[in-house]
């Protein structure tokens, strides 16, 4: 944001802005609750005051977040109606929209407009009530009593009530019907109190319960489905044209050709949606996607991240808006700790002890030699944020801005070269050629990684691009030297550190030979404990401390070479009005969108 934006505000708007900023920062830094009460942190959603206070406490609040015209998108001005055609990038077909079977972000970006959950995240990744009007949490955080919204109907006219929540829960718990049953493993039971109230009983407190388990898009396990529609349509058809309570209903879905959604007239919020119709076309290749946008065939690009090389082209087009925010994810270069020349068999030592081991010296040398700024400039065309841990800036409150300076992975070529020499490989001499595994679409940027390491350390790295199914199999079995991979859709710290950084994390070498490899790519007891603790910590301030401590350990001990946090870039025609409330990183919510 520049001063020009401030100059455009009226005197009254500037005064209001300054007042809100002042109030947000008006708290005692020693107060662990930052002047907020427990009720202010409970549902149905957090007040604007509470959100701004937490952001101020986390050091992420600026006037940018509060301006009505911040980020280049403004309040809804245009009239309702119209048809929006979207291109879904990097995908050939939307194979399913059944939340029980969804396994890709491109799918739940669509279902977020069609199906509802008890909760939905806002642009600050904080949970707000969706079908839940309010909720109460018991003293130890193991029981949640939800009061459901009244007068909600499904697209087929059925009334929504507590029975639908129970049905969805039972379906999702059944591993033969849902691939997300694991998400509910902490839920012991769910009880119908009355038609509009349900009680969840958890085995142990779960900090991410509202934003992860119950979230309507990425949550999936508790995305509410219509039991009547499922029974009538069968699961195959339901997966193509699911029936929910969302602002849009699906009227047509041809695999490979696209999805057509129409406005649901009886949505619980009568002011939404604004559009009459939305058409979503999957377009796998970047050039046709760009041409479709430039020709006006599509007016908005969603789906997988847009090819970085197209961004400048779109930016130069006066008819298009390129809206960039930090994406909810991280990308890394993973190092196999069981490789003979990079071997680390026990991470449970202080860094100072690990530094005496040749394998760790090599590991740290690689991390320190990684020029992230250069990588971003060449591989990502300048888009993205350098990463030093799994916790991404979009998480706001939990993100540690200072880690860039305090991490052992901070870029330092001379130190990296010294470490390699001390490990016995001065200038990379005598170090074997490593294979860097990636997918065919990742070949170009993996080559940039290889080139940077070759230039800074003299090590030879050969890029091996293999299809996704082969790539995944080799990663799970730990049959690789280095690997380029990461995570997206990380809205809560659990998505990052639980899923990736624990010894028992689901991606951590689950198919390895355990007799030869006691752990996969990383294991640290202290990190495991901290991550378990933060997972059950309801107090956000305490949780933040635990998250950041665990994140620091994984960074300092080089769990991986953290590379960057991808940018979340939305491109749309200037006729499309996308209000701030709709700009949720990783999602494409269209219920407030209008066309000029």
């Amino acid at each position, binding site marked *: 944001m520049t001063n020009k934006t401030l100059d455009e505000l009226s005197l009254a708007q500037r005064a209001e802005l300054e007042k809100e900023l002042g109030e947000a920062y008006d708290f005692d830094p020693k107060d662990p609750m930052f002047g907020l009460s427990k009720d202010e942190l409970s549902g149905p959603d957090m007040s604007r005051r509470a959100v701004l206070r937490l952001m101020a406490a986390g050091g992420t609040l600026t006037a940018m977040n509060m301006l009505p015209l911040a980020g280049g998108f403004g309040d809804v001005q245009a009239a309702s109606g119209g048809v929006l055609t979207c291109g879904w990038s990097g995908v*050939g077909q939307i194979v399913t929209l059944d939340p029980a079977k969804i*396994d890709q972000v491109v799918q739940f970006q669509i279902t977020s407009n069609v199906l509802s959950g008890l909760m939905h995240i806002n642009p600050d990744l904080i949970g707000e009530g969706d079908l839940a009007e309010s909720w109460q949490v018991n003293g130890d955080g193991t029981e949640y009593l939800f009061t459901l919204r009244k007068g909600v109907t499904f697209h087929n006219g059925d009334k929504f009530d507590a029975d639908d929540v129970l049905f969805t829960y039972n379906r999702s718990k059944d591993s033969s019907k849902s691939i997300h049953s694991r998400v509910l493993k902490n839920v012991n039971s769910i009880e119908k109190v009355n038609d509009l109230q349900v009680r969840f009983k958890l085995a142990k407190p779960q900090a991410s319960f509202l934003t992860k388990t119950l979230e309507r898009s990425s949550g999936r396990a508790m995305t509410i489905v219509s039991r009547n529609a499922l029974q009538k349509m069968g699961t195959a058809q339901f*997966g*193509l044209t699911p029936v929910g309570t969302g602002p849009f209903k699906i009227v047509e879905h041809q695999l490979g050709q696209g999805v057509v959604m129409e406005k649901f007239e009886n949505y619980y919020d009568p002011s939404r949606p604004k559009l009459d119709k939305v058409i979503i076309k999957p377009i796998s290749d970047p050039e046709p996607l760009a041409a479709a946008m430039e*020709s006006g*065939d599509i007016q908005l690009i969603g789906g997988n991240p847009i090819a970085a090389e197209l961004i400048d082209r779109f930016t130069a087009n006066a008819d298009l808006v390129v809206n960039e925010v930090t994406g909810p994810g991280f990308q890394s270069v993973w190092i196999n700790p069981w490789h003979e020349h990079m071997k680390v068999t026990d991470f449970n030592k202080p860094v100072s002890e690990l530094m005496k081991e040749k394998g760790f010296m090599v590991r740290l040398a690689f991390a320190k030699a990684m020029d992230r700024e250069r990588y971003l400039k060449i591989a990502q065309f300048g888009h993205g944020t350098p990463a030093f841990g799994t916790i991404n800036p979009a998480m706001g409150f939990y993100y540690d801005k200072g880690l860039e300076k305090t991490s052992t992975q901070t870029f330092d070529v001379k130190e990296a070269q010294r470490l390699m020499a001390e490990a016995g490989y001065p200038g990379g001499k005598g170090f074997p050629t490593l294979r860097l595994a990636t997918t065919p679409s990742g070949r170009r940027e993996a080559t940039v990684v290889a080139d940077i390491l070759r230039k800074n350390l003299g090590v030879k790295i050969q890029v091996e691009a293999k299809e996704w*199914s082969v790539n995944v199999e080799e990663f799970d079995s730990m049959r690789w030297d280095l690997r380029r991979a990461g995570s997206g859709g990380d809205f809560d710290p659990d998505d990052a550190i639980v899923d990736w950084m624990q010894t028992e994390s689901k991606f951590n070498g689950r198919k390895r030979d355990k007799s030869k490899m006691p752990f996969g790519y990383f294991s640290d007891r202290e990190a495991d404990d901290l991550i378990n603790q933060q997972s059950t910590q309801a107090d956000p301030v305490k949780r933040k401390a635990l998250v950041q401590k665990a994140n620091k350990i994984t960074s300092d001990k080089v769990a991986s070479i953290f590379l960057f946090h991808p940018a979340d870039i939305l491109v749309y025609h200037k006729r499309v009005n996308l209000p701030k409330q709709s700009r949720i990183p990783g999602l494409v919510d269209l219920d407030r969108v209008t066309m000029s």
Partner: protein
Amino acid sequence: MYQYLIRRTFGALVVMFAVATLVFIMLRLVPGDPIAAMLYDVGDPAAIEEIRRSLGLDQPIYVQYGIWLGNALQGDFGNSIYGSRVEVSRLLLEALPRTLSIASISFVVAIVIAIPAGLIAATRRNTGADYAVTLVAFIGLSMPDFWLAILLIIVFAANLHWLPAIGYVPLSEGFWPWFSHLILPSLAVGTAFSAIVARMIRSSMLEVLNMDYMRVARSKGLSELTLVWTHAFPNALIPVVTVIGIAFALLMSGAVVVENVFAIKGLGRLLIQGILNRDYPVVQGAILVVSAIFVFSNLLVDVLYSFIDPRIRYGS
């Protein structure tokens, strides 16, 4: 003739069976676990095993083959292993009209260009017209169809806004919406096709034009048009029809790259995505259809020979 047709049909079925069996085995030998890849993000080994079991993928390969073959003989190609597990037959029925649309219009484009071009080049051999046709044919053959496709999109869609850039509209929604979406893909595919056919027509016509009977016909005073169109061209058609038959079969099996560029989910794209995803039932079903297209196209070409050249008869 009927006996010939029956024999050839039987042979075609044997070929299809052999191709399907080979593909079945090869798919399962190729590295990569489709279920693990599909559920990678979920990371639940129990869910992975449950799905593998429900799809019968935990069975020995010969059991899987037996089940698949038995169902295929009854017209049931199974369900896609991905997402909503849509029936393969449904996917094929949705993809075929799109591929047929592109193939048909590409075919018409190619023939409309190739026949006059080939005839002109042959009848005006070693003149400027011949060289021009030859040069254009070489350019058409050398240009990758995906490159031409992107160029057409940039010019006619992105810049001139004359035609849509991507997508497919069924004929049921109107002739012009359907046709306008097919012009650019058909041009991209048909250009190389027309170059091949034009060259073949030229070469075949040159051979026929030099035959004795043509000299006799010319000496009888027949017009050039009658000579070329009535006497030379039909006899030059045999090798041309062979090439057209093979090329059409290739078109029908899906111009994969062009389908990808224009985001049209035809047979080729269905097949390629199936292979990349290791979606076994989809690949097996699509391969059966593709092999059927090839063998029956060849059969049709052979039958056409007997109409083009009365000397060719298929007896017992």
